[in-house]
């Protein structure tokens, strides 16, 4: 899922300052699951902003903010507010802005990464959306996302006791994991081959990415 966390309250307050009626808009997708932008967080944040900023704060939570069709449910509510405080990821914030061209839209969250839930209040990054998945090669551990240097021919010299020198307390060495997985699978031969330089044009380096699927266009 997309993992996000709420911005510091002072930053949120500074963003909405000066408005009289704000719509706090949650999202029922990833940010609900990672407990940062669902109905409950909307309710808590709205109360704090009401008290702290002495303004009217309306509340709503859409099924998803990354899809325009779900915004119909809050169109009237949004029109009567003079700003939207979105508790979605950065994608949802921009969809709200696209649908309400004359209205200020502010982010209440910092979108952090795509990752797994590793236990209560714990998440970690697993995918960079590089556009050319190599998990099939590397034993289903992603060195692009999980190695601090995105090495394709690791590990570097900074791997000690299974941990990465960038943060030996918190970051596992992805290459130790790749190594251990391939060993368990009896596929250490994979590591004998030199991985070629990546085609980074499939990442954001190639410009903002778009996806068009003719088959889906036909369905519409």
């Amino acid at each position, binding site marked *: 899922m997309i993992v996000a966390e709420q911005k510091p309250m002072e930053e949120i307050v500074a963003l909405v300052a000066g408005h009289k009626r704000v719509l706090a808009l949650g999202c029922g997708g990833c940010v609900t699951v990672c407990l940062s932008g669902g109905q409950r967080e909307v309710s808590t944040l709205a109360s704090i902003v009401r008290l702290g900023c002495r303004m009217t704060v309306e509340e709503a939570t859409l099924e998803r903010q990354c899809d325009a069709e779900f915004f119909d449910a809050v169109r009237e509510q949004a029109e009567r507010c003079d700003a939207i405080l979105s508790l979605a990821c950065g994608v949802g914030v921009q969809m709200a802005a696209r649908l309400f061209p004359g209205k200020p839209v502010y982010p209440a969250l910092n979108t952090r990464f795509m990752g797994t839930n590793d236990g209560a209040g714990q998440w970690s990054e697993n995918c960079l959306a590089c556009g050319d998945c190599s998990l099939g090669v590397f034993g289903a551990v992603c060195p692009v996302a999980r190695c*601090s*240097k*995105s*090495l*394709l*021919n*690791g*590990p*570097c*010299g*900074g*791997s*000690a*006791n*299974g941990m990465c*020198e*960038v943060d*030996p307390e918190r970051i596992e*060495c992805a290459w*130790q994991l790749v*190594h*251990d997985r391939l060993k368990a699978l009896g596929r250490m031969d994979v*590591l*004998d081959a*030199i*991985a*070629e*330089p990546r085609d*980074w044009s499939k990442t954001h380096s190639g410009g903002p990415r778009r996806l068009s699927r003719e088959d889906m266009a036909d369905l519409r």
Partner: protein
Amino acid sequence: MNDNACKSGSGLEKKLAAGGFAVTAELGPPKSADIDAIAKKAACLKGVVDAVNITDNQTAIVRVSSIATAKLALDMGLEPIMQMTCRDRNRLAIQADVLGAYLLGIRNMLCLTGDHQCFGNHADARYVFDLDSLQLVRMVKRMRDDKVFACGQDIRTSKKSEPKEPRMYIGAAANPFGDPFEFRAARLEKKVKAGVDFVQTQCIYDMDRFSRWMEHVRDRGLHRACKILAGVTPLKSAGMARYMRDQVAGIIVPDDYVKRMADAKDPKEEGIRICVEQIERIRQIEGVAGIHVMAIEWEEKVAEIVEKAGLRKNGE
């Protein structure tokens, strides 16, 4: 002369190819536009060692560029080994700098991934890591031997002109002390396959582990496929020994050395003594082609170490 001989016009290559035991040292460029600091360090090393590594924003701290310092060192009578990391440059910038460095007379290059920027003085910088060190080795080798850029195009000014390729003697680092240990020699083999001519190791304190690594290296025949220079760093104080042991990933310092440094009346002298002992032990290990002395901000001691270890360049 073996297959790797004289591909570059490097003096280091000539010496190693002829079976000589090479000694290299390190010259860390200064953190300001201070040419005197470079000259002072260069003077300590001139005539003492076969070649000198010029570090590239070492530990991710901004310094005079390795290419500029390498050219200055060359003019000051040293043979530079220009270090190049993948942290600060993408494949365009690296290839441009390799072309430029070659024109400036630089013939040795050490290909590194580079320390993560979180360790330096610009921790909020964006990293590059377009390539890793292995891919860098292969790219520079292909520039030299196949006369092509990473994109496959010929290295020539126009379609009608002859290729004019940069011919570097290609080095890389090897770390016998990182984990997983069993993969360390295998990774060196990958560097050999990628085209590395010589490697310099991370500084060695744990001689047993280094010996075991060299066994793996010899089992794979890698000591014949590339020249292995063993890295040593003289300890200056017990504090430095503890710091290296506890804080630097990929370096193992046995407690015995920490104790010797702590007990010594003159820790600096003890550090030199330990270093000389290490070199003597390393020279007994089959497959080691030279010593790389990384005297960190202590270049003035390299001559003494080289002399005491019986490695005096001029005495050969």
